[in-house]
């Protein structure tokens, strides 16, 4: 029993790395999502092209390949990253590309009448976006952002391939040392699920808070 406690500790150490990756990756993904999502709606054509290129490239290539580029290829050009930095970069850019389309879609779904009210009240483009369009669009983005964050959590397991000791990496260590597959992989199965549940609940809570009073039912 004491032996398993030691191994469990190893896996929990890995869980901390996984949570760190998920939080930092999600933060980067959120920033990228808004930059690229708004970029695609820009009136300036080169900005639109740049945003589109980013989205298509990072959606269209595998996270696995992106991670290897970040960790093994960038150093050849003089950018050396720690495994954690490389992991956050690859995960954030990859998931950010998906989430950018969520940002764009949500903004586009806000009715024309809201934009017209902004014009009639003489807001400039940024004021209308900042105070009228984005607050309403953000509520619509949230459920899909929740999906994206959970996707990112699960995709974070690939970092074990660049020797970052995340939860999956530690499970493999435990498996190698004990020969048991059931214990480590059942443990991380439960842990991944638990973290995903926390993300789910947090997003739902946020959604409830932000939609309070919006439709007259939830006040």
């Amino acid at each position, binding site marked *: 029993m004491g032996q398993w406690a030691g191994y469990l500790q190893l896996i929990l150490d890995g869980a901390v790395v996984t949570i760190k990756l998920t939080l930092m990756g999600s933060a980067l993904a959120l920033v990228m999502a808004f930059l690229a999502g708004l970029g695609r709606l820009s009136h300036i054509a080169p900005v639109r092209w740049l945003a589109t290129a980013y989205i298509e490239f990072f959606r269209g290539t595998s996270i696995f390949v992106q991670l290897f580029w970040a960790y093994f290829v960038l150093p050849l050009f003089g950018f050396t990253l720690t495994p954690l930095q490389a992991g956050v970069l690859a995960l954030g850019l990859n998931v950010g590309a998906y989430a950018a389309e969520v940002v764009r879609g949500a903004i586009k779904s806000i009715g024309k*009448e*809201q934009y*017209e*009210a902004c*014009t*009639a*009240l*003489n*807001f*400039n483009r940024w*004021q209308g976006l900042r*105070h*009228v369009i984005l*607050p*309403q669009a953000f*509520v619509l983005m949230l459920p899909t952002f929740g999906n994206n964050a959970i996707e990112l959590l699960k995709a974070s397991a690939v970092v074990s391939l660049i020797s970052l000791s995340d939860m999956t990496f530690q499970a493999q260590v435990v498996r190698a040392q004990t020969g048991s597959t059931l214990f480590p992989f059942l443990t991380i199965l439960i842990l991944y699920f638990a973290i995903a549940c926390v993300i789910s609940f947090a997003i739902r809570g946020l959604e409830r808070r932000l939609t309070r*009073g*919006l*439709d*007259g039912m939830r*006040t």
Partner: protein
Amino acid sequence: MPPTNTAPIIEINGINKSFGAFKVLNDLSFSVAPREKLALIGPSGSGKTTILRILMTLEGIDSGEIIVDGESLYQMQRNGKLQPADDTHLHKMREKIGMVFQLFNLFPHKCVLDNVTLAPMLTKGVARKDAERHAMELLDMVGLADKAKSMPSQLSGGQKQRVAIARALALKPKIMLFDEVTSALDPELVEEVLNVLWKLCRETDMTMLLVTHEMGFAHDFADRVLFFDRGRIVEDGKPDEIFRHPKQERTQAFLKKIIAAGHRV
């Protein structure tokens, strides 16, 4: 009553506007005197709403010229030449004009008070305290001071429209455009909105353009009525002339149809 011998606040000279193959406005010209209350009536698709949307810069024009308060709306002087208006020019011109929409277009995520204070704070840099004081005066004027903290979703259609009127007034425009502001309301809610318009009509100096199907109200409210059909003004005159003694056949036919539909004239 409209003053005479003053320069018009709005001059529309020969404007054309098409949506695809459909010609909405056809070489249209008219002018509006300062403080004049103008009713625009006519069948749907006749172009009356498009006029308001063009004045609010929500739609552009294909050709022609619009002068608002002495300045071209869609053109500006730069280096001694007339050029298409840029954002700065449009921003300046929009300060003179306010608009109320058929479907209210309130901001659903903001309470009534914030709906009214947002624009003065953002576009004129009014301090929150002053914006709120002015907003409360306006809400009081439209009879909704007690709803300041309510969300739009908690209001009836008539209340929403009264908030929308207060919101537009908060920017103190010289010209107010009302685009079928009672058309989306249940019949029993129409009157509370018309009462507010009536109050504005009597108590303020604003120039008001009202697109409406409420012929009885248009008759009492307006100094002048324009009857539109197919993108042109068919008849232009005092309410009594238009409603009691229309000269044009098309005006007569339209009014007959409206009366048959149960509207009071």
